[in-house]
C-alpha cells in the first residue's frame, strides 16, 4: 500500500484552492440531474412489476375524470354545433292556413334580424319525409293527411331579448298553432355539458389526491430501502434538496408515465365508443371528433408529472424530517 508523505498532502491541499469550483458548480448540478434521471429510469426497469402496478393504477385513476372531461367537451361541441348550424325552431301552423297567408308570414319572418332562414314543409312533404325515415312507403297513402304545415326557422342566436320577442310575436300570430323551441333543448344540453365539466374537475381534484397517495406510498417503500444511504448523505453534508432530487425524479417520471397511459386508455375508450355515438350524433346533424391524442397525452402527462413531483416533495420531506438526521 502506498503511503503519501505529509509533503505531498500539503501540495494537494494547495491545489484545492486553485480548483475552479465556481465554473464547475453548474455542470455538477446538471450532472446530478442527469444522474438522477438515469437512476430513476433504471429503478423503473429494475422493478418493473411494482413500478408498472403503480403506473397502471395512476392511469386508471386519471382516466376516469379525463374521460368525463373529454365527453363534456364533446357534448359542448355538439351543443355549439347545433346552436350555430342547427339551432332551429319548428312553427306548426293551424289547419286550413291559406297559401298567401303563409307566404306573407314567411316574408315577415325573413325580415327578422335573428332569423337566418326559414323553410316551408307542407303536410305532403312532411309525410314523405316521415315515410322515408321510417322506411314505410304506404305512409304516403294515409288520408286525410294528419300532419300540419310546418315552418322550419333557423335562428342566428339561441337566446337573448330579440329571440324572446320574436317567439312572443310568433305565438301571438293567429296562423300559428304551436312552436317547438330547439334552443331550449340545446340550452339544456349545454347545462348538462357544464355539469359534466364541473364533475370532471371535481373528480380530477379528488382522484389527483388519490394519485398523490398512490405515488407517495410507492416512494415511501423506496425511502425505507434507502434509509441508510440517506443517513450517510446527511452525514457527509448532503442538503435536503440534494437528497430529495432522486425521489422527485422517481415521482415525476412515475406520474408522467401514468398520465400518458391514462390518455391511451381514454383514447381507446373513445375510439371504441365513437361509432355508436357518431351514429346518434349524425341524426342530429353533428359529429364527434376525438380530441387529438398528442394534446391529450401531453395534458394528462403534465398533470401526472406535477402530481408525482408534489407527492415526492411531501413524502420525501416528511420522511427525512422523521428518519434522517439533517
Amino acid at each position, binding site marked *: *500500500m*502506498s*503511503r*503519501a*508523505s*505529509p509533503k505531498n*498532502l*500539503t501540495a*494537494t*491541499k494547495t491545489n*484545492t484552492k486553485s*480548483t475552479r*469550483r465556481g*465554473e*464547475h*458548480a453548474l*455542470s*455538477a*448540478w446538471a*450532472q*446530478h440531474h442527469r444522474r438522477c434521471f438515469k437512476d430513476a429510469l433504471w429503478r423503473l426497469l429494475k422493478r418493473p412489476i411494482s413500478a408498472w402496478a403503480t403506473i397502471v393504477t395512476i392511469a386508471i385513476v386519471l382516466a376516469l375524470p379525463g374521460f368525463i372531461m373529454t365527453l363534456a367537451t364533446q357534448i359542448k361541441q355538439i351543443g355549439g354545433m347545433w346552436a350555430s348550424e342547427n339551432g332551429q325552431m319548428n312553427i306548426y301552423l293551424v289547419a286550413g292556413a291559406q297559401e298567401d297567408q303563409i307566404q306573407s308570414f314567411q316574408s315577415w319572418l325573413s325580415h327578422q334580424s335573428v332569423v337566418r332562414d326559414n323553410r316551408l314543409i307542407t303536410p305532403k312533404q312532411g309525410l314523405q319525409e316521415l315515410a322515408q325515415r321510417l322506411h314505410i312507403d304506404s305512409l304516403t297513402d294515409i288520408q286525410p293527411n294528419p300532419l300540419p304545415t310546418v315552418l322550419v326557422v333557423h335562428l342566428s342566436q339561441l337566446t337573448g331579448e330579440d329571440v324572446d320577442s320574436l317567439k312572443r310575436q310568433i305565438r301571438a300570430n293567429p296562423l300559428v298553432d304551436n312552436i317547438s323551441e330547439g334552443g331550449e333543448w340545446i340550452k339544456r344540453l349545454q347545462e348538462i355539458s357544464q355539469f359534466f365539466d364541473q364533475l370532471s374537475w371535481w373528480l380530477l381534484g379528488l382522484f389527483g389526491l388519490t394519485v398523490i397517495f398512490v405515488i407517495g406510498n410507492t416512494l415511501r417503500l423506496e425511502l425505507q430501502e434507502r434509509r*441508510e*444511504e440517506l443517513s*450517510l*448523505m*446527511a*452525514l*457527509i*453534508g*448532503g*442538503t435536503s434538496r*440534494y437528497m430529495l432530487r432522486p425521489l422527485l425524479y422517481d415521482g415525476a417520471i412515475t406520474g408522467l408515465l401514468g398520465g400518458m397511459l391514462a390518455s391511451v386508455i381514454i383514447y381507446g375508450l373513445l375510439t371504441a365508443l365513437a361509432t355508436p355515438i357518431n351514429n346518434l350524433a349524425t341524426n342530429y346533424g353533428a359529429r364527434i371528433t376525438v380530441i387529438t391524442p398528442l394534446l391529450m397525452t401531453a395534458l394528462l402527462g403534465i398533470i401526472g408529472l406535477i402530481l408525482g413531483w408534489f407527492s415526492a416533495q411531501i413524502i420525501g420531506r416528511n420522511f427525512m424530517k422523521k428518519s434522517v*438526521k*439533517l
Partner: protein
Amino acid sequence: MIEFDGVSRRFSNGHFGLQDVSFHIPEGRMVFLTGHSGSGKSTLLRMIPALDHPTSGQVRIGGHDLQKMRHHQYPKLRRQIGVVFQDHHLLPDRRVFDNVALPLQVSGFGGKDIRRRVEAALDKVGLLARQRALIEELSGGEQQRVNIARALVNRPKILLADEPTGNLDPELSRDIFNQFSDFHAVGVTVLIASHDLHLLKTYAVPRIVLNQGRLSHIEEAF
C-alpha cells in the same frame, strides 16, 4: 478547533449519555477518545457533526457554537468533517470509485475534479487498482480503507473515527493508524474513538478518557 463546555446529553429514558463534559482540542492535533463500551464515546462523536445535540452545555467547532447554527448550515459544517465508522457505512451496490466520490458529488464538484480527487485518495490508501470493484468484493481491511478514502477525499479540517480498527488484525490496524498520522501531519485535527488497547499502548497520543458519560481524565497535556 473542537470545544466542549459542560456538555450533557440526557436521553428520553432519563439515562445520561454524557454528563458535564468539558475539553478543548486545538487545531491540527491528534487525540484518542477512549473508555469502556457505553462510556459515551459515540454520543460525543455524534455531537461534533451535529448529528446529536446536547441537552445542556455548548459544543463549538472552529469557533462556531452548534446550538446557534441553523439546520440549513449543518451540511456546510459536515463537509468539513470526515467520519470513519467501524462498520464502514459503504453503499454495497456501488463501486469503490462511486463510494469515495459521494462526498464530492454532494459538495457540488464537477466530473473532472471528482475523478482527480478520488484517484488521489484511492492512491493514498492503496486501492487505486481496485476502483472499479464492488464493495462486496473487498476484504474487511480494504473496505475500511475505502471508508478512510471517502472521509478524506473532501480534505476535511476534522477527521473523526469511531473504532476504526475494531474488526481488523494488529497489522492492518497499524496500517490504518499510520494513515491517520499522515493526515494529522498536514494539519488535519484527528479524533479517534477506540478501546483498542494495543493501539492505545503503541502510540503516544493524548487521550480523553470517558467513564459512564463523564470525563474521567485527560492523559498528556495538549
